[in-house]
């Protein structure tokens, strides 16, 4: 029997890890992720989860140990944030290129300096090219559900999955979360049975030197796996919704029918945007939301499909991409991706790009509306617009 409890986002993660019967956890504390590992330590100590918890000396070692555990045949998990994720960078490649189906929870936190513990997506988006699947969550329920789905997805496509949500806005915020019954989860997520693992009875050598003769083929094989991930996620989500009655897609459209302008969001800002859109709709504005859940693999076709098929081919005039991140010298990271995705599409809308909420700067419905006003009143997108910036 499922139960509903008021949980902070970090504890939703811990529950997800427990329900997934994770076998090895290796983690290192960092604000705002720390409560995940605190809770998991408790859960393991209590015996509620039969797992080995390695209290490593750095995030780098956390990722190394997690990869190792995965190679040795265990379902493995770690969590981090910001500087910690950056420290893992080298090994994020190792995990993905090594095709380890591990799950990492990253609580989005701004990069230093200046020291900031507050929300900002730059940390995870900067790991764009490491080969990880990235899933962004809007609510604590999404966090818990996607944590469970992430393991299933990872083990289906043999790729690591990063489940991402905002510092404090979700991580430290309590809200009701439905917790599925573990027996149901067991049916959804059977034990981890990798095709290859470190096993003396079948002594393979993992990750040897790879000459120019074969390296490129491995990249191609992995790229195909990434392509397959989009469908795989939908299959996993379908199975999940059958069992747990909550639906997930790789992107989600809200109030998009008949909309002239779409606001593109990710993570928790989507919720605030819902409020702003409701207010704008009351004022008669034809505005909707496109919420992106998956950053890698990037849902190019799904996006084109969604935008191209609204309201029987109703053309979306403009979209406004809301980026709580920055690639210095390159602008908003989501917007760049979207521009690239839509390039060459005959009915492509104009793409406007906005920086907002960096380093934990609060995003209110007014912040969103300011962006909307800008996109509505401008014909052509120019450089990225900074919303809420003190000038």
């Amino acid at each position, binding site marked *: 029997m499922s139960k509903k409890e008021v949980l902070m986002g970090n504890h939703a993660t811990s529950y997800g890890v427990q329900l997934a019967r994770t076998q090895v956890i290796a983690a290192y504390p960092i604000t705002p992720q720390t409560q995940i590992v605190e809770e998991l330590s408790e859960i393991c100590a209590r015996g509620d989860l039969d797992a080995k918890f390695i209290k490593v000396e750095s995030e780098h070692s956390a990722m190394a140990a997690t990869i190792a555990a995965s190679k040795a045949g265990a379902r493995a998990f770690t969590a981090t944030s910001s500087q910690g994720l950056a420290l893992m960078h080298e090994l994020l490649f190792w995990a993905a*290129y*090594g*095709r380890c189906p591990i799950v990492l929870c990253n609580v989005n936190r701004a990069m230093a300096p200046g020291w900031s513990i507050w929300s900002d997506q730059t940390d995870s988006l900067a790991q764009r090219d490491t080969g990880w699947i990235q899933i962004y969550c809007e609510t604590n329920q999404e966090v818990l559900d996607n944590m469970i789905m992430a393991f299933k997805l990872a083990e289906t496509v*043999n790729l690591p999955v990063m489940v991402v949500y905002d510092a404090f806005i979700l991580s430290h915020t309590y809200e009701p979360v439905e917790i599925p019954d573990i027996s149901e989860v067991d049916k959804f997520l059977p034990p981890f049975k990798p*095709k*290859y693992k470190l096993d003396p009875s079948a002594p*393979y*050598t*993992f*990750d*040897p030197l*790879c000459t120019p003769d*074969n390296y490129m*083929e*491995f990249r*191609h*094989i*992995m790229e195909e*796996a990434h392509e397959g991930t989009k469908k795989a996620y939908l299959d996993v989500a379908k199975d999940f919704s059958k069992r747990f009655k909550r639906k997930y897609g790789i992107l989600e459209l809200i109030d998009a029918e008949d909309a002239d302008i779409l606001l593109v969001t990710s993570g928790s800002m989507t919720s605030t945007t819902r409020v702003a859109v409701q207010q704008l709709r009351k004022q008669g504005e034809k505005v909707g939301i496109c919420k992106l859940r998956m950053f890698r693999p990037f849902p190019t076709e799904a996006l084109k499909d969604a935008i191209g098929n609204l309201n029987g081919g109703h053309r979306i005039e403009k979209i406004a991409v809301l980026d709580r991140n920055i690639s210095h010298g390159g602008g908003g990271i989501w917007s760049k991706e979207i521009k690239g995705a839509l390039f060459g599409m005959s009915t492509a809308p104009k793409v406007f790009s906005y920086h907002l909420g960096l380093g934990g700067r609060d995003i209110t419905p007014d912040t969103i509306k300011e962006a909307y006003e800008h996109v509505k009143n401008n014909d052509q997108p120019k450089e990225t617009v900074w919303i809420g910036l003190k000038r």
Partner: protein
Amino acid sequence: MSQEQNRPKPIKYNSATEMPYCDLSQATMEWNQTGTWRYLRPSYVERTPSCQAACPTSNDIEKWIKLFEKGEIEAAWGAATIENPFPAIMGRVCFHPCMDGCNRGELGGSVNINMLERALGDAVGEKLPVATPFFEKSGKSVAIIGSGPAGLACAYHLTRLGHKVTVFEREKKAGGMLRYGIPAYRLSKDVLDREIERLSRMGVEFKLDSGVRDATKMQELKQDYNAVFVAIGAQKSRPLGIPDEKTTGVMSGLDFLRSFETGRKHNIGNRVLVIGGGNTAVDAARTAKRLGAEVTILYRRSRAEMPASEEEIQAAEDEGVRIEMLIAPKRVIVKSGHAAGLECQRMELGEPDESGRRRPVPVEGSEITFESTTILSAIGEQIETNIIPSSLRFDNGALVTKSCGQTEWNSVFAGGDIIEQPRTVVDALCAGKKSSIAIDCLLHGDNLDKVLDKIQIGDTEYVSMARYLQHRTGNSPILSTNSETELLNEIVRFEDLNAAYFTKSSPNESPTLPVKDRLNGKSFEEVHTSPSEELRNDELSRCFHCGRCTECDNCFIYCPDVAIAKKQSGFDIDLYYCKGCGVCSFECPRAAMKMSEEPTEL
């Protein structure tokens, strides 16, 4: 070749779909021919241990020590007797030059090979095994004149080579100097009888009491036999060359020693002077001592120049024999027609003479007198030239021969003390063997010089019967145990060994009878006794086994490329993989491997 076909092949992927989904190896590297990296290739060799090279019989000591240590006593005896017919005798009387050659000498002291040889001879002695011939009967016959060590050795080897041998001996018993020149406390007559008996059982015919007494007899033998080997030795004592040396009470040391075997008894009285510094002098002195006399050896040079073996001199001194150095006899003092003493002169050492030793020069006015009941002269032996046909030449008191004792009469050979060579038992055995090989070559029409090239040990004059057998048959009973082992005619010196694998240890001394027992009651019992099994085994373990594989596994253990495999016996180097690093060869403790340049195969 089948092995080559079974090597794994490299894997070629034509499509990404054939590959695993991640960088994961499931195949072996064994397709990779790392042998192509090699400049030098290792191989197993057998080199000559320095003890063997120092032994006039080129006895393959290492070989029998190895077998002896394993407890394979008869096999060890079989190996030893390829080159040396008499381990039991030589283990008693040999002055063991092998031990001077032994590389263990650099690390605590030479292996006591002499003791081990005696132990080996005694271990099989009572069983009386007989060395079997290597070849079918040839139908050829050889006459041997004289049954001393040279004659016996020649008879032994020729018999093993398939020829019919008849030995002519003028005494009533065979053995020559072994019987009449060496006292029983060094070589018991039982042992000697046993060893000669062994030869009889092999088929050697002894014609005793029928020696050759004149030159015409030799001519007859030359016609009746396919070859003749003359080994009559040097039996005549050299005269002192001083006044009154023919007086009663003066006799030759050799006659004195011989008398014990022929049953004649001499009353030597209680004060005996022995003149000379060789083995005969020391033997005579020690024998006289055993008869209860006060014995003094007079020698005209210093102790360092004494030709007798150091061990014998030491034993004589232990037994109470006095040795007066730098004393030369001047005349016999005669009283009542009997020698009553010796007037001597003190000497000092001057410039070196032709022998390289410093020449003794009289010191004016230094006359000194010794009293005596008997004077024994032992300043050397001469050959009885009268029984040798006059057409055979003598030079400097020795019969002139070509290589391997061949005389100017092609089918007549000579060896032992009759020819120019050191007058030792082991040199006599050497001469007997060399002539046996030369005779065999003659009877087979083989070119001796070419054969010698193949069978000489290093740059020595010594020859190996084992190698001769290999020359004759293509394989040898005791050389390499492994057909892939190359035989190299190189002598292993201490610096060729890897000394890291050996620790210093002192030799075990041969057990000896206490001095007091030697002089009363057990007077003519052997001074040396056989070692206990424990002592013997400890001494056996001291052998380095120079130049010979002992399967110590070093090469196998140290191969970084897993290219050396152990076989039932020995090792196999897989040249497909060997990178030629040379570690195996360098770490071989005993120089039983070599590295050689990789051939350019076209």
